[in-house]
């Protein structure tokens, strides 16, 4: 196994994220998946839009493309059509992918182009000051919903299955081994792979909703896991969680996997 840090642009470290932000855990799990698959760093292109999650691509030593807000799937589509030999991975956030770029996301899924989308969902707009996002659970406090969010939240996996993505999965940042496995599956899947990673924002979501810092946020997310909770529910880790906000239980694991013709821009036959 390679030292994971060799995949980082070490001179950019430490990264820009807040203390306890689970996005770093997700990035590590992704790099472990890249390492397991022995992908060539020069043949791996990461495309991102705008947001905390999108900032991560600045720290990895692959080919990286920082696009405009919400348009990462569009940049990725162009890149994959022009350079089909590349592994194209889109790193995006919940606001970037579902609100600002919702249109681009569903149409990339509809075409079933062979890219992998990692959507890091922290249920809030972290970079811009904690506004409520399409994934903010009902009742949760955000800077734009000081008395609690009144809107229902998106189930992004159902949305993407409906849009036609051929690989859809949901994982929790608190389960790094499962994350790595599902990401490796998603990268190798031929066609559009969408992986929602439930990440966290201790700085805004955790603070506004009295959940606490990074460690508490991780155990908070495990109680939303519909499947078997991860290692964090063991021992003292879970005892510190005041459960004030709870989204509906989320199904985890690979939720959709089918092999369909992959979009290449060329009409066959």
């Amino acid at each position: 196994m390679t030292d994971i840090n060799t995949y980082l642009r070490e001179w950019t470290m430490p990264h820009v994220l807040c203390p306890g932000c689970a996005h770093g855990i997700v990035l590590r799990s992704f790099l472990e998946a890249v390492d397991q698959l022995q992908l060539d760093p020069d043949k791996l292109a990461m495309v991102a839009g705008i947001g905390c999650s999108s900032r991560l691509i600045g720290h990895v030593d692959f080919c990286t493309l920082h696009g405009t807000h919400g348009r990462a799937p569009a940049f990725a589509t162009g890149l994959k059509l022009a350079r089909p030999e590349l592994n194209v991975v889109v790193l995006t956030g919940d606001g970037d992918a579902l609100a600002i770029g919702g249109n681009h996301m569903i149409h990339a899924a509809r075409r079933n182009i062979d890219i992998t989308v990692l959507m890091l969902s922290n249920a809030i707009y972290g970079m811009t000051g904690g506004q409520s996002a399409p994934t903010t659970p009902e009742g949760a406090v955000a800077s734009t919903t000081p008395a609690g969010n009144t809107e229902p939240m998106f189930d992004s996996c159902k949305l993407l299955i409906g849009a036609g993505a051929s690989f859809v999965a949901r994982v929790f940042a608190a389960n790094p081994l499962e994350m790595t496995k599902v990401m490796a599956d998603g990268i190798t899947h031929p066609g559009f792979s969408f992986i929602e990673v439930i990440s966290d924002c201790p700085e805004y979501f955790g603070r506004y909703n009295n959940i606490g810092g990074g460690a508490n946020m991780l155990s908070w997310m495990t109680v939303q896991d519909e499947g078997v909770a991860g290692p964090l529910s063991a021992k003292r880790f879970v005892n510190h969680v005041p459960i004030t906000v709870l989204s509906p239980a989320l199904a985890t694991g690979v939720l959709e996997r089918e092999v369909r013709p992959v979009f290449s821009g060329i009409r066959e036959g």
Partner: protein
Amino acid sequence: MSETTSGLLLAGVGGQGVLLASMIVADALVRAGHDVKQSEVHGMAQRGGSVFGHIRWGSRVDSPLVPLGSAEVLAAFEWAEAIRWVPYVRDGGAVVADIRMIVPPGACSDRRSWSMPYPGIDAEVFASRGLKTRLVDASAIATELGNVRAANNVVLGSLAAFLDIDVVHWEAAIEQFVPRGTEEVNLAAFRAGREASEAQIPLPTVEPEGFSGPHEIDIRHDWCKGCDICSRICPEYCLAVNGDGVLTVTNAEACTGCRLCVLLCPDFAITIHPPQEPATVPVHAVQGGASR
């Protein structure tokens, strides 16, 4: 209790098909014209715990439980379970056992001392009470036939020698109870078990690979933001964030190298070195480019 009632015991580990085997035995006995009662215990079976089934048969059976020291035969699917349940067999009875060894999960609960090793083996347990033994390497036979999960039927094949049931009844019961599509391999396993050669009493096990000394925790302080995740997740309480928000190793002797802290560190700040491996000097030097 009828004078003609006999009992047998099946014992193994969760996942080996002990209960399925006990249904097959019970059904074969019914087909042979006996009154049969069967009972089972399967507590934490799916976690690798002990599973056993009691079967009693005769012209009339009132209770399914086999009293201590009265079973005709013990069929064990795992070596430690064979030792554990031997007291249920009557003097001069028989023991059929798979020599496979499965280390119980309890032995893994203390990762440092491994204070629960695999039980010792004493052939005297059998000889002193005049027990007939038939040991088979059922798992190896079943693996050779293509499916290790058919090992339970290999044991039943060996068990058949001690019970007066026509082969026709055995095979009908197997066909009825095994999962659809696996009839062939299970019947083959049963037949192989009837003819299996006697296996040797297994030698005492090699010590499990355990704690070989504390791992070294290497913290990269210029990347660590003191978020407290690693110190809260560490099962051995090795790490703590001090009052200044600096992560420190508080219990270096206890690190078992589970790497939970490494996997859950958002800042790539922790590396774990195994005891033998010389710690590499971390590269803290700025590698060109402007630092952030």
